[in-house]
């Protein structure tokens, strides 16, 4: 029984990490006031570019660099449209979603379904993996998972305990005020959107280089949307996003396993749970019946235009 539970939890962590990169990136991007609906497309671009690099060079380090660059480049284009040209963010997000899924399928056609020679392998962390149960769950994972253990506390520290983090939060609440005190609103939004997209691309790489070791068209299979929903679910908070990701990961892994024990409930209903939970969480945390200030950035989805201030 313990072995069963550890295997489920360990798999839930792998699942959680593959959406957490994108979710944490999107939290930064949305905290800066830019909603990027194109995560799924950018994840696919990350997945295919990472896989192609590994396929031709067998170098995982190089692949990670390429993935981050591809993500940042797409982020640059997205920021140009939404920050400089003040384009509608919903429409832009859709454009990137469609472009990303089309282009990734286009350039990855020749390597579809072929396994690469290397992938991020799991390794044990010396002492820590010896802890019973916990060691098996948390410390027998791959590099991308361990990196996430560092990213979550760092991003919490950054957002809530540093001056740039405070500026980031203000960026999504009241960019005009920041502009008035001489902070470069446009530059910062560019930076955070690019960071968000780079993280989304790494999320994609998690799927093609660690979860599996092949590329398939549309292989993210809606994980980008789960990452997107996680942002609202978590109340724009990376630590809560991590818990949420584990919960969603757990649900989906259990959903697969429960088919064996509870054939009465079809797997699709487990699949619906994250989305239903997000709607519920969104109502509870941002509904206007609440007296408290909501975590949803007030300037989210609004482009900042100096002339119409």
């Amino acid at each position: 029984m313990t072995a069963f539970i550890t295997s489920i939890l360990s798999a839930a962590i792998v699942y959680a990490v593959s959406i957490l990169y994108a979710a944490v990136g999107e939290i930064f991007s949305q905290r800066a006031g830019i909603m990027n609906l194109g995560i799924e497309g950018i994840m696919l671009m990350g997945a295919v570019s990472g896989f192609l690099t590994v396929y031709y060079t067998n170098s995982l380090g190089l692949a990670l660099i390429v993935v981050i660059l591809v993500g940042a480049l797409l982020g640059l284009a997205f920021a140009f449209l939404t920050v400089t040209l003040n384009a509608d963010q919903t429409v832009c997000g859709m454009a990137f979603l469609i472009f990303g899924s089309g282009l990734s399928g286009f350039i990855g056609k020749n390597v579809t379904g072929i396994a690469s020679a290397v992938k991020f392998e799991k390794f044990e962390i010396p002492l820590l993996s010896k802890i019973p149960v916990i060691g098996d769950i948390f410390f027998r994972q791959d590099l991308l998972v361990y990196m996430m253990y560092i990213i979550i506390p760092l991003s919490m520290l950054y957002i809530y305990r540093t001056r740039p983090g405070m500026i980031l939060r203000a960026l999504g609440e009241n960019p005009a005020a920041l502009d008035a005190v001489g902070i470069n609103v446009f530059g910062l939004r560019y930076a955070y959107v690019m960071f968000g997209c780079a993280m989304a691309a790494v999320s994609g790489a998690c799927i093609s280089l660690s979860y599996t070791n092949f590329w398939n068209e549309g292989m993210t299979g809606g994980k980008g949307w789960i990452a997107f929903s996680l942002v609202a679910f978590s109340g724009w908070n990376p630590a809560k996003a991590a818990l949420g990701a584990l919960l969603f990961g757990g649900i989906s892994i259990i959903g697969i396993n429960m088919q064996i024990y509870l054939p009465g409930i079809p797997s699709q209903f487990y699949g619906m749970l994250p989305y239903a939970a997000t709607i519920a969480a969104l109502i509870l945390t941002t509904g206007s019946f609440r007296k408290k200030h909501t975590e949803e950035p007030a300037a989210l989805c609004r482009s900042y235009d100096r002339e119409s201030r």
Partner: protein
Amino acid sequence: MRIGTVQIEKRQIVPPGIRILNSVLFVLLALVFSSLLIIAAGFNPIAVYAKMISYSFMSLRGLNGSIKAGLPLMLCGLSVSVAFRMNLNNIGAEGQYAAGALLGGWFALFGPDMPAAAKLIVMFLLCAAGGALLAAIAAVLKAYWNVNETIVTLMLNYIALLFMDYLCYGPWMAPKQTSAITEQIPKDMFLPNIGNTGINSAIIIAVVMALCLYLFSRYTTAGYEIDVIRNSVKSAEYAGINVKRKIIAVMIISGAIAGLAGFVQITGIVHRVQAQLPGGNGYTGIVVAYLSRFNPIAVIIVSILFGGLKNSCAAVQIMGVPSQIATMLQGSIMIFVIAGEFLNYFKLTLNREKHGPGRLQDRSDMPGLKEGCKGKENYTEMKGASR
């Protein structure tokens, strides 16, 4: 701003001619950009484009295929443009399409036996109701609790699609089938083709819907009120428009139209319900609506063009080009047209005068304004004193 003798001005109202010219220009730029990607993949872009155009639009058979592929897009595009006109980001056309298809499909598959016309009418209404119901959830949440409608409609998409998956893989799955499809709907519910053109009569539904929406937004009070709400919710409330009720009404109409995409697809094209029936048309509908500037008549035309793009995949696949080229082109066209949008708001004129036109007046020395400011100061002072 002036560069040499060229004067750059901002404008508020963009003439339709400029809009169309601008869109065409940036679509061409998108094709140039995509041709670089096509070259990188080792194909000749001119040959690929020529093949796509000649296959989709130059023959009657190809054109029929393009219209067929564009049919659900038309209704999704109309649905999105209704909501977006009021700044309601309903990105749930995909799910509303699925919900409509499920409710209408349920009736078509398992409903009582009735005359064909009656069955079609009931199914039409049920499809609209299915889409409207799903949209109503997001609408009520938005109107009363100001919950972000973008996220809610998106989440509902997945819930509806998964439910569709469940039905098509489970209780509705046709026996002796390996894929997730149901039985065919009764033959008398198939919508016929128009004459012997090969174009399905379902297109009439889309065109009539577009005309109605156009007339509605142009000539009715409600249509005008929606324009007011788009421009400023505060002034709409001040003018006594019931914004909450408008949000709910517009979302329900938008959802109902998306639900009708299900009707069109089931009765006109596939004749059954299947998993993933919307197949991304709900999302592409957003692209179509945006490219048409939310103008219902333009939605019909752009849908046929996008249908053609989708349709031409088969032709270029023979040349070895991956079929994903269509999706890639759709995406890049959209990105470029969005980027070109800002150019609409600038007017370039040649200016031979030496001095600037003096449009920007220094308003600070206008007597009326100064008085106004003073009055306001006095008012605040008084308010302070009374406190």
